[in-house]
């Protein structure tokens, strides 16, 4: 059997495998197990960038220009670094507006303009169709070359080609695939999971095949890179391929190719399709932005080695460098490798054609065919969803046939590279409108139109027509003398500019005309309401609250049922019913069928329609059912202005009210505290005055007795005077302590924290109270370690505390039989002192209260004179002092068993 049979059958088997992969992925998606929700699949689908142009053409170009093929891949590498900035924004905009193609993106940005959408679509078809033709050509040529060489090589030359025209068959199979997996649902914003998975699969096949052939050539035919490059360097003809010398156009061409490749990787219809429309989750960009350049790197690693190997081995010439990849394995006796390489090339070509055609069919149907259809047959009211799908399928077939025809027409006249470059330069014209349009609100519809138009005219003149002239479709004088003999219009030296190579020349003039026109018109143009709102929506897509301006676009009247009917005409009644139900549930709406649709519902219906038929047509359709006046510009802007002001104002109000609430809360707390303090102060004052009055009363009473009874005996007189003195002393003490306490509580007391020895403090206190114990013959014993116990404390205050505790103890002890023990204790949390007496003890109820101000235990009275012994402030002051040292003081006691006062302080209270 001849290779003429084997190779085509193998191709068909391979395409069948592709169908199976896509079918499987669609089935998985239907079961809710999405295969494409995965950054690696996303990255591989972006690799649809690598077409047969990469696969065969890069080697061809490298064989003639050295590194001249690289800008096409270095540009996207650099662009990938900007994806996080640009692509995330474009994706967010597209998701928010249900945008499904690059034409729709531009039309939608500039006021949902049908004319602009149509224009972009037309340019895409003109610019990209040759690129599709190129892929078909690559498939046909590679098949012919493979069969020819295999038959030659194996000496089995068959008769004539029984297949006739392979390109036509391939085109039809691909059309079938695109129809099956690209036009399932009408809503193009739904993803084509099967198609994307198949593309990812093809990306693996083409990379694998290319790496295989690269490894084979480098390490099989030659002895590694060193050997291959060494031999090439020895050849003067090849030596120049290693430097810029071989690059036509030099550094300028290098730069302009990098630039247009940067733009092409974003704005070629198929790239926009996989990058934006088929994107499941913008987070996938994170991985794609390094994995995709890595993929390109791997793909290009062996391009130059293969090209050099081809040049070395076929030094006689006569071999088309574009086919080196295919022929080298045959030369090396590797028939199976050659077949694998052929399949890789087939993958590269088919994946590009499939995605490009699906993307273009959406564009052509939404932005060219539908607007015309709706315009001429706006009256017809039947279900259109089926018709639209049929239209889209028809467009796919038509595009394939057009591509095929183009391929037939251009025939052999072009190398792969030049056609690709022309397409790249064409889509670069979309970049200014998109990139400037998503960052500058001021770009108007007329500016975008003008810019695009200018760019395209220059592009057609300098590249497209020039290439026609080269192919001989137009007279050669067009190139040499300019159109109609006008010299300054010469396509490759416009206005006499002959500094650059043709590509740089065209890129420079076309982008200059494009951007210049766009900016200039924008500066002097007035935007309509729709334009302004869409500009706002696009530029501020990430700002919360900035969106939703769509709702203001509809002020007329339409009933819910009419709106639903409109939607069902395009997406089918069941789907429309479901959409409305979901929306109402989401918004918690409950609208009657005949009720007037609120503006946001109209906006929702418009968005839903946009996904199906594009923004421009959707707007036309919705306005055909909405009656009443459309808002004029001033009305809309006023509403928008008011709304944004109101939103801002209410946000500020919210903030203010939150601040106020917090302040109120604080105030309330402070107020409560103040009231509490006020109550305490009142209580304190009344207690203090009461306590002061007691000694004063007795002083006064005894003084009066002394004054009135002059004949009183000396003993009584002395006793009364003694009481007066004692009471006066108590009064002084009381006043001192009140002042102390006031100072401590107001925080005005000065504390002198220093390192002190607690043992020494305790001894000093015992010495100071020594006399009291002597007077009452109470025994005192002191138990302390023999070494110093150091801590940071205010020495005088601690002495005061110990003295207070000791004098309290002695006060309550019975004379002669009383005994007081002082213990100095060290425990893990600090040091402390215990003062144990054998007095009457404290009732359980009073244990807590003894530290309260002016609390006097009932027994604490001088038996001889029947006056209170203490002031009732001593323990309170002790407690404050110990608390200031971050320690605690407490008492343990039971009635009749004495009392134990203890305090415990940390070694360092800090500040």
């Amino acid at each position, binding site marked *: 059997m001849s290779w003429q049979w084997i190779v085509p059958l193998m191709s068909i088997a391979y395409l069948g495998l592709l169908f199976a992969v896509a079918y499987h992925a669609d089935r998985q998606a239907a079961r809710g197990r999405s295969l494409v929700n995965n950054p690696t699949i996303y990255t591989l689908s972006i690799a649809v960038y690598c077409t047969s142009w990469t696969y065969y053409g890069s080697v061809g170009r490298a064989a003639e220009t050295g590194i001249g093929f690289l800008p096409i891949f270095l540009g996207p590498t*650099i662009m990938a670094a900007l994806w996080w900035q640009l692509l995330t924004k474009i994706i967010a905009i597209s998701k928010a507006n249900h945008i499904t193609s690059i034409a729709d993106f531009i039309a939608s940005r500039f006021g949902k303009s049908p004319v602009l959408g149509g224009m972009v679509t037309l340019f895409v078809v003109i610019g990209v169709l040759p690129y599709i033709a190129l892929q078909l050509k690559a498939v046909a040529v590679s098949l012919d070359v493979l069969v020819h060489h295999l038959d030659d090589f194996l000496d089995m030359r068959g008769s004539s080609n029984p297949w006739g025209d392979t390109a036509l068959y391939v085109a039809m199979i691909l059309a079938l695939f695109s129809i099956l997996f690209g036009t399932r649902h009408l809503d193009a914003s739904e993803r084509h999971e099967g198609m994307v998975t198949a593309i990812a699969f093809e990306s693996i096949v083409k990379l694998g095949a290319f790496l295989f052939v690269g490894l084979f050539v480098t390490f099989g035919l030659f002895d590694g890179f060193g050997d291959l*490059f060494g031999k090439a360097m020895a050849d003067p003809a090849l030596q120049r391929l290693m430097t810029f010398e071989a690059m036509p156009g030099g*550094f300028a061409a290098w730069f302009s190719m990098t630039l247009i490749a940067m733009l092409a990787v974003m704005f070629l219809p198929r790239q926009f399709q996989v990058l934006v429309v088929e994107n499941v989750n913008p987070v996938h960009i994170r991985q794609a*932005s390094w994995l995709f350049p890595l993929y390109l790197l791997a793909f290009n690693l062996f391009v130059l080695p293969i090209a050099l190997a081809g040049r070395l081995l076929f030094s006689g010439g006569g071999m088309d460098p574009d086919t080196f990849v295919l022929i080298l394995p045959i030369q090396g006796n590797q028939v199976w490798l050659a077949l694998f390489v052929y399949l890789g090339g087939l993958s590269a070509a088919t994946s590009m054609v499939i995605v490009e055609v699906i993307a273009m069919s959406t564009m052509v149907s939404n932005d060219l065919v539908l607007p015309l259809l709706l315009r001429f047959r706006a009256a017809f009211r039947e279900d259109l969803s089926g018709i639209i799908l049929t239209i889209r399928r028809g467009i796919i077939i038509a595009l394939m046939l057009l591509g095929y025809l183009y391929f037939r027409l251009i025939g052999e006249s072009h190398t792969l590279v030049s056609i690709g470059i022309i397409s790249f330069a064409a889509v670069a014209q979309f970049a200014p409108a998109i990139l400037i349009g998503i960052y500058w609100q001021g770009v108007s519809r007329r500016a975008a139109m003008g810019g695009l138009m200018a760019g395209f005219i220059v592009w057609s003149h300098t590249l497209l027509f020039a290439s026609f002239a080269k192919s001989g479709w137009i007279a050669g004088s067009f190139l040499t003398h300019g159109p109609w003999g006008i010299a300054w219009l010469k396509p490759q030296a416009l206005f006499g500019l002959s500094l650059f190579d043709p590509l740089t020349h065209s890129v420079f003039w076309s982008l200059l005309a494009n951007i210049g026109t766009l900016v200039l018109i924008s500066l002097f143009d007035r935007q309509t309401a729709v334009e302004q709102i869409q500009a706002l929506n696009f530029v501020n897509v990430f700002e919360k609250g900035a969106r939703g301006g769509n709702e203001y676009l509809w002020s007329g009247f339409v009933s819910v049922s009419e709106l639903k009917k409109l939607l069902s005409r395009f997406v089918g009644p069941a789907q429309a019913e479901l959409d409305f139900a979901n929306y109402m549930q989401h918004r918690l709406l409950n609208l009657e069928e005949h009720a007037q649709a609120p503006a946001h519902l109209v906006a929702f219906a418009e968005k839903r329609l946009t996904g199906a038929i594009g923004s421009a047509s959707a707007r036309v359709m919705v306005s055909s059912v909405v009656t009443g006046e459309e808002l004029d510009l001033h009305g809309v802007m006023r509403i928008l202005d008011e709304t944004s002001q109101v939103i801002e104002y209410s946000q500020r109000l919210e903030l203010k009210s939150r601040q106020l609430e917090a302040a109120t809360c604080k105030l309330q707390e402070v107020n409560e505290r103040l009231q509490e303090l006020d109550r305490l102060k009142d209580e304190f004052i009344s207690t203090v005055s009461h306590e002061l009055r007691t000694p004063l009363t007795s002083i006064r009473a005894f003084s009066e007795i002394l004054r009135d009874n002059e004949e009183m005996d000396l003993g009584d007189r002395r006793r009364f005077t003694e009481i007066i003195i004692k009471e006066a002393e108590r009064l002084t003490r009381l006043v001192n302590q009140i002042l102390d306490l006031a100072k401590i509580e107001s925080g005005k007391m000065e504390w002198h924290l220093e390192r002190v020895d607690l043992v020494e403090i305790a001894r000093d206190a015992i010495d100071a109270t020594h006399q009291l114990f002597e007077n009452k013959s109470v025994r005192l014993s002191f138990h302390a370690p023999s070494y110093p116990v150091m801590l940071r404390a205010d020495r005088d205050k601690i002495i005061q505390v110990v003295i207070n505790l000791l004098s309290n103890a002695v006060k309550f002890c019975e004379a002669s039989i009383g005994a007081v023990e002082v213990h100095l204790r060290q425990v893990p949390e600090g040091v402390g002192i215990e003062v144990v007496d054998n007095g009457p003890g404290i009732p359980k109820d009073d244990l807590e209260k003894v530290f309260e101000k002016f609390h006097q235990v009932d027994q604490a009275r001088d038996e001889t004179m029947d006056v209170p012994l203490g002031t009732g402030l001593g323990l309170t002051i002790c407690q404050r002092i110990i608390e200031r040292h971050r320690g605690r003081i407490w008492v343990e006691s039971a009635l009749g068993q004495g009392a134990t006062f203890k305090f415990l302080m940390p070694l360092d209270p800090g500040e």
Partner: protein
Amino acid sequence: MPMMKRRKERLVVLAVLGVLAINYPLIALFSQERMVLGVPMLWFYLFVFWLGFVVSIALIMRRQHGDKG
């Protein structure tokens, strides 16, 4: 999201550096008929740049604290 903003800034600077690195005049320095490690100097330079660029993007894109997904 200050981290997100910083990441965007880094990537933009990286892209600018990338454009500078592979264009005239810097690239002209490497356009010589010399071999580095057995491969042509220009070829070597471009691919080393390429790998470095990819690694840089990956490093900047590394998942950071607070990232979603």
